[in-house]
């Protein structure tokens, strides 16, 4: 319990630091959205127009950095992340809450599937090394070595364009109204198949390799020999003794990869024009949309911290050696 409290304190400090950096970073970048607009209109904006743009974006007030910082924190606690420039005048929190569920469901589910499947294959491959399962390794590694955007584009050209089995872009049938009805959900699932498959195929090798190698290491531990000597059924030795110990490093890797879902989704969503948070971030960066970028970075930071905290707790549950007596 004390351990958990100490960890929680650590995460609070880290969160504060991350949020502060998040505040400073865009303000240290050269240029602002109005400058970007001026550039876009190649100086054909009058000074009046420029002044009104500053007022419109709320960038007209000359306040000190510190008071901006205080306001920033105050707004943060109210859940107010400002207005998005690109989706003006939609609040950033609304933009995020619309796109986040897409990312979480697509990437969350695929990450879990990839981890569970890869770990299971790794357990068998490590337990029966030299069997046919080992021949999966080069294939899986090959796919994970291909740059993701390339794999995605090939999948689109083969399955969507040539074969026409799956849609090439989007998150659901255009024209459907998002809601909790079967028509919409089945359409969303259908649109998610191709991005999900490519993500699984490109990420599964890591889980297989990691688990297989840990299984090989753990299989030669004395307690596994003892378990054999005790005459336990092979399944019990494999799962209860070998895999149970071998999975520990993979578990922390998994928790961390959950944290990177939000950040790591950019490429997937760009390739498949998926309406998730990565796609929104991409648009936001292009448009120098500070509030949106800040909001998304904040979400990413919090997701990573939360995943770390979960990893700590899960580790505590799974490995009694990390518990303080």
């Amino acid at each position, binding site marked *: 319990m004390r351990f958990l409290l100490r960890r929680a304190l650590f995460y609070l400090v880290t969160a504060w630091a991350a949020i502060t950096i998040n505040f400073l970073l865009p303000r240290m970048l050269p240029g602002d959205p109005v400058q970007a607009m001026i550039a876009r209109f190649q100086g054909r904006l009058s000074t009046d127009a420029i002044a009104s743009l500053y007022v419109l974006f709320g960038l007209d007030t000359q306040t000190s950095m510190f008071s901006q910082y205080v306001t920033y924190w105050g707004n943060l606690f109210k859940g107010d992340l400002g207005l998005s420039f690109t989706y003006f005048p939609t609040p950033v929190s609304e933009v995020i809450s619309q796109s986040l569920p897409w990312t979480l469901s697509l990437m969350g589910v695929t990450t879990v599937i990839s981890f569970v499947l890869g770990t299971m294959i790794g357990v068998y491959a490590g337990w029966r090394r030299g069997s046919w399962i080992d021949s999966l390794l080069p294939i899986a590694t090959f796919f994970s070595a291909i740059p993701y955007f390339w794999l995605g584009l090939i999948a689109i050209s083969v399955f969507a364009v040539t074969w026409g089995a799956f849609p090439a872009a989007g998150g659901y049938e255009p024209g459907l109204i998002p809601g909790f009805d079967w028509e919409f959900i089945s359409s969303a699932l259908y649109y998610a198949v191709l991005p999900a498959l490519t993500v699984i195929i490109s990420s599964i090798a890591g889980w297989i390799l990691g688990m297989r190698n840990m299984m090989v290491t753990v299989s*030669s*531990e*004395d*307690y596994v*020999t*003892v*378990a*054999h*000597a*005790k*005459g*336990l*059924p092979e399944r*019990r030795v494999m799962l*209860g*003794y070998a895999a*149970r*110990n071998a999975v520990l490093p993979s578990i922390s890797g998994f928790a961390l990869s959950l944290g990177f879902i939000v950040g790591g989704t950019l490429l997937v969503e760009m390739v498949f024009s998926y309406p998730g948070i990565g796609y929104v971030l991409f648009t936001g960066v292009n448009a120098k949309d500070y509030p949106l970028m800040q909001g998304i970075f904040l979400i990413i930071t919090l997701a990573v911290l939360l995943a770390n905290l979960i990893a700590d707790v899960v580790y505590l549950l*799974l*490995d*009694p*050696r990390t518990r303080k*007596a």
Partner: protein
Amino acid sequence: MTPVLEIRDLSVDYGQGAGAVHAVSSVNLVLNRGEVLGLAGESGSGKSTLAYAMTRLLPPPGLITGGEVLHHGRDKEPVDVLGLTARQLRSFRWNDIAIVFQGAMNSLNPVSTVASQLDDIYRAHRPEMSRGQRSKRSAELLRLVGISADRLGAYPHQLSGGMRQRVMIAMALALDPEIIIMDEPTTALDVVMQRQILEQMMRLREELGFSVLFITHDISLLVEFSDRIAIMYAGRIVEQAASEDMYRSSAHPYSKGLLGSFPALHGPRRPLTGIPGSPPDMRTVPSGCPFHPRCPSAFDACEREIPVLEKLSGTNGDSSRSVACWLNTPSLSGHPGVGAT
């Protein structure tokens, strides 16, 4: 004395083909009911390999290339352990033969409690036991090895090295086996703990009547705790005798060397001699008697031919006494026999 386990002509190789290392060569060994048989030898002499082979726990690339391991169960026909099916083997393990391994620190699953590791044994071998019976038996076992029952919920890392080894012994006793193999059970422990655990083990043997195969490099422990001693060198048994005979009048120069490498705990002081040289590389075992390059009394026959294990009359008419040394073949050596150096 009736045998409980009989090893006949057992050979074990590591690897296959021309590069194979013959870790154990044609070993014959009999463990009698209720006795403590000591097996001693330097590192790499094949004693642990022998133990793993007879329980078929040999990790790859270890390979049993020949021989039989006969188990004479109570009121049962002898069965060859090497011929058991996977299912029979599982039931044979721990029911009939339990092992206490050398790594006291790593023999327990670090993520399970003592109780759940004991439960695994009952669930695999005694599925009819109820939860209450199981926990009662576990508590009883811990009490047997001198650990209070409230440690059942403990994880291995919460126990000291000595306690972990006691827990292992308790586990070995769980199904009341006829044979317990102790493979260097006390190497990771200090001398005081060593003694306590061995004495406790011997007390339990008196009470429960199992046989022990006690493997160690520490021959002084064997002299004290075992009934008979077999000495291994380079994968072969070179001498077998009752502890008393072994201690007083070992016939093989290697046994003498081993005995001279430990200080005597009792009796008059004698100088430590040790054995010159180091154990042979098992990939290139010397010709003839593998011990001849280190043997103080080697002569030309030793280099040419491998001595066979031959009977030697022991005191009290012990018929199992045997030695593999040309010094005991008078026609070859010109020496009078036993004890000649």
